[in-house]
């Protein structure tokens, strides 16, 4: 056991201080995306709703309904429309209200 004890002491502490202090590794992990309404045309929004494999994106009149809870951060929407989709870097997403995870992203109507 002495072997383990000495190793442990020499190794030092690796424990995060989160939540008392921020942890640098959090924001660099894959996170649900954020959207750019200016670049989100109706056509693009339809493409994104079709490509999401997890059912997190759905079209409704004038909006893209985005369920952050269903998002797996797989990156398919960002790859499909890189001008309209960006990283959110958010990982503190837990909530006591399920509806707080459902966002309505305004869709830019094309000029006729």
């Amino acid at each position: 056991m002495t072997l383990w004890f000495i190793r442990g002491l020499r190794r030092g502490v690796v424990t995060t201080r989160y939540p008392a202090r921020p942890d640098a590794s959090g924001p660099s992990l894959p996170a649900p995306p954020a959207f750019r309404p200016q670049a989100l045309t109706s056509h693009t929004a339809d493409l994104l709703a079709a490509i999401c494999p997890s059912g997190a994106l759905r079209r409704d009149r004038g909006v893209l309904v985005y369920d952050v809870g269903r998002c797996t951060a797989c990156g398919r929407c960002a790859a499909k429309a890189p001008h309209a989709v960006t990283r959110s870097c958010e990982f503190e997403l837990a909530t006591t209200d399920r509806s707080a995870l459902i966002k309505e992203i305004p869709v830019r109507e094309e000029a006729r």
Partner: protein
Amino acid sequence: MTAEELRETIARQFGRSLHIRTLDTGSCAVCEQEIRLLAAPHYDLNRLGFFFTPAPRHADLLLVTGPMIRAFAVAARKTYDAMPGPKIVVATGACALGGVYPDDAFTHGTVDAVLPVDVWIPGCPPSPLALLHGLGVAVGRLADKVRDLPFTEDRDPERTRGGS
């Protein structure tokens, strides 16, 4: 009981010592690996007053993964019923929140179809940090901030290229 009273009760009963039971309703095994890491040196949930327990009778919080496969629902309900009140149910991972698997013949698709969920933690998988945040929200120690996050960015990508 008002919402404020409920928050105070939760903080008082669970704020300093919370026992967690885990429940797999059909996950791919990765959520379980992240949950196991909560006890690992990098995260050490014990320093925050959280403890794992294998006994439902001893547990305050049920940490549930997976899309609630229908064939498992009876076992899930029994596990929940075996926990004495007051108790908290936390659904964790995209599968548990309705993603990945829809409501169909095999799966309910969400944990809240069978159990009364109090806290939802998104992610695929939710990292141990996200889980710690979720546990903090469950006991009222950390802020529930996702409601105020818009998940939109108004900056024009053309303009940012020039640097600002």
